[in-house]
């Protein structure tokens, strides 16, 4: 001890201000005068009568014994004492949990421990009574005015404002905008041209550009409802769900792999992705969409699709290795669910209240743990997509086989165990150092404790050469062993094929979860199991399911349990007294998640409709009325048009939570049809960022739409929908950064030229082309993507092989449609990619370029001794030099600003 003490003092002497601390260390600290006041004021409310983490600091004995984490005080060595380390912030969680000790108080405790932690007076000192101190930690008063914050008041349908410019503002949305324009002196942009509008609507609603024919049809349609018809066509297109479903998948932090070290494939995750796409295509009412994702296993209308929908709760990253050894992982997964649910449906960052009351919003930590209680019954399951009887038969067959194999394996182990040790000594030990050899050869009873550890490791963890085991078995035992092995093999063959399945959740008891990877009760894994527990993984038989208990966790520390929690919601956003559980009649789940869904998807919930209406607005206009779609709290952006948001929210509910209805509503406004090409000095000055929407905002295509648009323009888009994901080609050196590769590199070709929503989402390795164009992090919910402009984007579009190949296909398409004339080709290339004809100057530049490039390529072809077999010319008179030159032009078009922007 003395050595350690001097060691720490010496280390201190090396630092700044050593003299002050050294001086204090010299001075004797008095327990009653110096230490007790610090303990009483800061420590004993939790570690006195209430013994959080099992720690009682009211006596020296209690300090020495410590709590769940071991001794709290090592007299004479503050650096080794948890009490000191926690208050000094050297070990997490730092203490006290609701503040920080003064430097002087920390120094006092340090000196006192270093001086031997002498105790004076009564062996045990008093502390505040337990229940009340716990309550002081757990309870937070929500001030009455907190409910007055705009997002927590129920949206009331505001009257549509009366404005002067009735011509522009015939639509309610426009009236709300115009009201602000008139106040601020802003002039709205005129309507965009029809061709621009067609491209805008296509890219916005389906994420693909219109064909030149579609543009022409719309431009030439003189009927008064031409625009409405265009919208209807797009909403009816299956590609609509692929575009808008993708937006939701960002919110749902969807990926096809588990993340972390193993980043395992989730082979059925895509079913959730397809569910989302189909839900948008079917226009599933949003309130049902919420319920299905949170509680699809416990609804009145539960079916395969709704069970798949619970994949929402499973979509986050998971370690999936040695989960039982690391119970804190489960709390992280619960946090992931709470974060995705609260940000996704409520626009609230409830996850910020995991360790303390929310710092900015009136969300008590207790709300977090009441929400955690809602989810606490969750267990990961494969939902079988087969009739219940079939699934049950499969399950019982499986269990039956497992049950028959188990005793065979036990018998096998009995025979093999001692023989394996003998085989090790005889045929494997020589590879290890001498002390190891001695340890295994020493009879067990005579081994030193260290030798015992070594022998144990060697016997259990080292394999023996094949045949060695046989050589140690008697003939009789060999026969028995071979018979057992044959029986096991036979049973393994009888394992039934699993019906199709989807990953999801339901209620159960996680403490009885089957072993996952790394959880196998292999020798020495040290998994902590509570043998006294009774129960089962899934609730079976009679009676209602009861969720396992959950607790308030002080400072978010899984080891520091406070009171037991009952399910509940975000208090400040709750009106009336909604039920916290709606148990289904089958009794197998708690109905808590169903109750949560009912609370969220209710017209009384102030957030749900506003949040979704805002998301829809955000994607149409490139910026939400609230610019932070996942955060409606104080740290989010205030709404630019609060009345409009409320009007939209109430309209959304009134229209049966129909997302397609909202598209119709928004897109038929003048606001949506404004030009982005519009300058107005006064407006620019008053609102330089165009927050108030006086002109349409240009929006850069997101990563997926950019790739899809290139494919559509080249004519190579494979429109096949749904099913397992595809793996477009990735540079092998990138794949090499990931353990085990996992990315199945497929040939660049039609099979992978599917829409980008079907490209494999690997958490550990984002698809590089998407990543460079601001793919959001795939581990957390994303409400709005970053849009950055970096040189690597230019490099990708200039040099990436896929882009060049598509440019070539695009050229072949254009040549086939336009023939050999350079002018015709330029016009067609513009029509196909940009939905318009080139201007005179554009056309002149393109034609001149084609001329030069044709010469270049013709000369180059002539130079090469053996010209490559010319591909079939797409049209009469089109030479390879023409095609190569045109591919240079189409490549440039892929790089144009206009190409990558919605205008």
């Amino acid at each position, binding site marked *: 001890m003395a050595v350690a003490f001097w060691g720490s003092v010496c280390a201190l002497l090396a630092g700044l201000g050593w003299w002050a601390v050294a001086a204090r260390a010299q001075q004797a600290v008095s327990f009653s005068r110096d230490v007790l006041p610090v303990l009483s004021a800061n420590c004993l409310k939790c570690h006195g009568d209430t013994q959080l983490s099992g720690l009682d600091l009211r006596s020296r004995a209690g300090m020495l014994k410590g709590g769940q984490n071991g001794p709290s005080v090592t007299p004479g060595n503050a650096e080794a004492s948890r009490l000191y380390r926690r208050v000094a912030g050297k070990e997490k969680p730092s203490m006290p949990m609701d503040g920080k000790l003064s430097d002087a108080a920390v120094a006092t405790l340090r000196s006192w421990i270093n001086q031997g932690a002498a105790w004076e007076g009564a062996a045990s000192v008093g502390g505040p009574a337990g229940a009340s101190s716990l309550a002081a930690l757990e309870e937070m008063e929500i001030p009455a005015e907190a409910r007055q914050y705009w997002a927590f008041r129920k949206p009331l349908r505001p009257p549509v404002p009366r404005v002067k410019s009735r011509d522009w503002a015939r639509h309610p949305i426009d009236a709300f905008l115009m009201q602000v324009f008139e106040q601020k002196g802003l002039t709205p942009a005129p309507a965009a041209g029809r061709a621009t509008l067609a491209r805008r609507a296509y890219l916005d609603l389906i994420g693909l550009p219109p064909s030149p024919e579609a543009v022409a049809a719309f431009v030439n349609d003189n009927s008064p409802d031409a625009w409405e018809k265009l919208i209807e066509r797009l909403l009816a297109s299956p590609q609509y769900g692929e575009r808008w479903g993708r937006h939701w998948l960002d919110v749902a932090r969807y990926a096809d792999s588990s993340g972390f070290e193993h980043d395992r494939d989730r082979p059925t995750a895509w079913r959730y992705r397809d569910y989302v796409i189909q839900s948008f295509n079917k226009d599933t009412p949003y309130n049902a969409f919420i319920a299905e994702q949170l509680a699809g296993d416990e609804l009145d209308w539960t079916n395969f699709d709704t069970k798949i929908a619970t994949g929402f709760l499973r979509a986050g990253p998971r370690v999936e290795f040695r989960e039982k050894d690391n119970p804190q992982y489960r709390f992280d997964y619960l946090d992931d669910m709470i974060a995705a649910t609260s940000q996704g449906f409520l626009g609230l960052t409830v996850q*910020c209240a995991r360790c303390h009351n929310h710092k900015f919003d009136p969300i008590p930590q207790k709300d977090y743990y009441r929400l955690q209680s809602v989810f606490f019954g969750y267990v990961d399951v494969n939902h079988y997509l087969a009739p219940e009887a079939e699934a049950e038969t499969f399950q019982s067959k499986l269990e039956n086989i497992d049950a028959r194999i188990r005793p065979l394996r036990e018998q096998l182990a009995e025979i093999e165990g001692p023989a394996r040790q003998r085989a090790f000594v005889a045929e494997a030990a020589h590879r290890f150092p001498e002390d190891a050899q001695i340890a295994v050869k020493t009879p067990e009873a005579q081994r030193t404790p260290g030798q015992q550890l070594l022998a144990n490791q*060697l016997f259990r963890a080292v394999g023996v050469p094949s045949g060695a085991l046989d050589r140690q078995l008697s003939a009789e035992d060999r026969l028995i062993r071979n018979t057992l092995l044959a029986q096991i093999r036979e049973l393994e063959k009888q394992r039934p094929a699993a019906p199709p399945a989807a990953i999801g959740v339901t209620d159960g008891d996680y403490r009885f979860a089957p072993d996952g990877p790394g959880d196998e009760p292999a020798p020495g894994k040290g998994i902590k199991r509570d043998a006294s527990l009774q129960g089962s993984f899934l609730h079976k038989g009679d009676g209602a399911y009861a969720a396992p208990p959950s607790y308030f966790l002080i400072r978010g520390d899984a080891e520091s349990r406070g009171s037991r929690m009952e399910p509940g919601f975000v208090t400040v956003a709750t009106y009336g007294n909604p039920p916290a559980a709606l148990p289904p009649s089958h009794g197998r789940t708690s109905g808590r998640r169903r109750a949560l869904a009912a609370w969220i998807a209710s017209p009384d919930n102030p957030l749900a409709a506003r949040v979704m209406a805002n998301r829809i607005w955000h994607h149409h206009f490139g910026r939400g009325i609230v610019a932070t779609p996942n955060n409606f709290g104080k740290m989010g952006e205030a709404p630019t048009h609060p009345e409009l948001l409320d009007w939209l929210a109430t309209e959304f509910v009134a229209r049966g939570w129909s997302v397609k209805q909202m598209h119709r509503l928004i897109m038929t406004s003048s606001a949506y049809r404004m030009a982005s090409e519009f300058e107005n000095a006064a407006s620019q000055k008053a609102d330089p960022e165009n927050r108030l929407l006086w002109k349409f905002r240009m929006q850069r295509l997101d990563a997926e739409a950019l790739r899809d648009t290139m494919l559509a323009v080249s004519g190579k888009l494979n429109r096949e929908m749904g099913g397992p994901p595809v793996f477009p080609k990735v540079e092998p050196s990138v794949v090499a950064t990931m*353990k085990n590769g996992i990315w199945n590199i497929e040939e660049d070709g039609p099979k992978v030229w599917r829409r980008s929503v079907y490209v494999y989402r690997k958490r550990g390795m984002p698809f*590089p082309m998407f990543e460079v164009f601001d793919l959001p992090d795939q581990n957390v919910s994303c409400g709005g993507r970053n849009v*950055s402009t970096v040189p690597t984007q230019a490099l990708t579009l200039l040099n990436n092989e896929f882009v060049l190949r598509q440019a070539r296909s695009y050229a072949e398409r254009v040549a086939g449609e336009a023939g050999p004339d350079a002018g015709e080709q330029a016009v067609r290339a513009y029509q196909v990619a940009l939905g318009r004809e080139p201007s005179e*100057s554009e056309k002149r530049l393109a034609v001149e370029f084609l001329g030069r*490039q044709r010469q270049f390529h013709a000369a180059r072809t002539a130079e090469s001794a053996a010209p490559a077999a010319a591909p079939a010319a797409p049209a009469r008179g089109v030479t390879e030099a023409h095609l190569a030159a045109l591919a240079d032009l189409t490549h440039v078009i892929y790089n*144009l600003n206009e190409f*990558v922007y919605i205008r």
Partner: protein
Amino acid sequence: MDCPGKKLDFISRRGFLFQASGGLSGVALAYLLNQEGLLAADPSCLPGAAAIDSPVAPRQPHFAPRAKAVISLFMSGGVSHMDTFDPKPDLDRHHGAPLEGKGEVVVRQGHPGPLMRTPFQFKKYGQSGIDVSEIFPHVAQKVDQIALIRSMYGRSNDHVLAHYELASGMIRMGFPSLGSWVSYGLGTENQNLPAYVVIYDARGGPFGGPANWSAGFMPAAFQGTILRAAGDPIIDLRPPGDLPPEQQRARLDLLAQLNDLDRRRYPGSSELAARISSYELAYRMQGCAPEAVDVGKEPQPVKKLYGLDNPVTAPFGHQCLMARRLVERGVRFVQLYHGGLGQQDTDTWDAHRNVKENHTQHAAEVDKPIAGLLEDLQRAGLLDSTLVIWQSEFGRMPISQRGVGRDHNPGAMTIWMAGAKIQGGQAIGASDEFGYKAAVEPHSVHDLHATILHLLGMDHTKLTYFFGGRHMRLTDVYGDPIRQIIA
């Protein structure tokens, strides 16, 4: 050091500026003209001010920095501190006995074994007389320039989670890496090169893959860019095949002209102007990045210093020499990995099976290159302005696995720093008598990160990025700079 970027100027440079820069602000225009002057004066890819619309334009730190650049040397797999930089004579005395009195011993694999002495000899080096293992003879010669921290500890005994902790301070994915925070805080000196580059082992990437250099919730501009030691250093840097440079120029000329026509319809849009100038930057990067990593023209003695003449040391030597060249050219943060996921046992420091064989091999691969890097940085006058960090994801156990290997131990590890005018020849903190836990002045990864930011002139409590309703920090709500390092 002739940079091909100069020769491949497109349009006439001035012509481009006058056509395309109308959308840039006056400051940016002045910058571009200034850059042109710079390039005319010195035909190399010199650092310079950035266009103001670059997300990685140089930014002022909070206070005067000690270092401008960082070279981080990451030994993937878990280096045993007891066998390298933290000698434990008590292990010799208690060799073969159980580890007792330290609470429950949590191992990653199998059962705990008995205490095991190091198979290596330690010797005192330099004026400081610090003990270093025989497997680091070259680095040992530099010990008077090195500050060892022998009391680091981490939170996870899982390779990947521990990598993430060192990378981002968090043991979960989704958080920006240190290099991202530094690029976000300081931008970079040379817009012709990425701000933050990653060069990993030829045998494969480190545990955890690209999440180690991800920008997490920050924009993509702040993520690490992989530079490859062979072939084109950046993916998609140059067109495939044998496209003549003037052909690419022809396309870029047309692109610039068409984009310029378009931009005239949107005179107020800085977004469009930024995108136009990003092609200019990309074009320069095409010339400058290959030049920056081309070690071919380095003098023979320099190559030798890094061990390029020896197949054992050549791969990491190459990485280290690339790092010096990048820092010299103004790159802000260079992350090197040694140890890659081919065969975990033999290709990383993960010495479960045999610590003597494993660490002898890996130390030999990095020892000379690292010493060479320190020497060369000093020779080039860069050491004082460059922070070099040597680290691993965790230490290893003082107890053995099967008498020969060692298991993971996040409880204690040794990392070291050099350069940045740090006082060398000091050993900060200490692990316990066996090296099982950090004991004297324990330092968390948050402390380490706070220290690094401090050396770069940033207060870790003030470098924040707003996300998910919070002002996020690299150090979460923890961390204190290590006083002996920043003294």
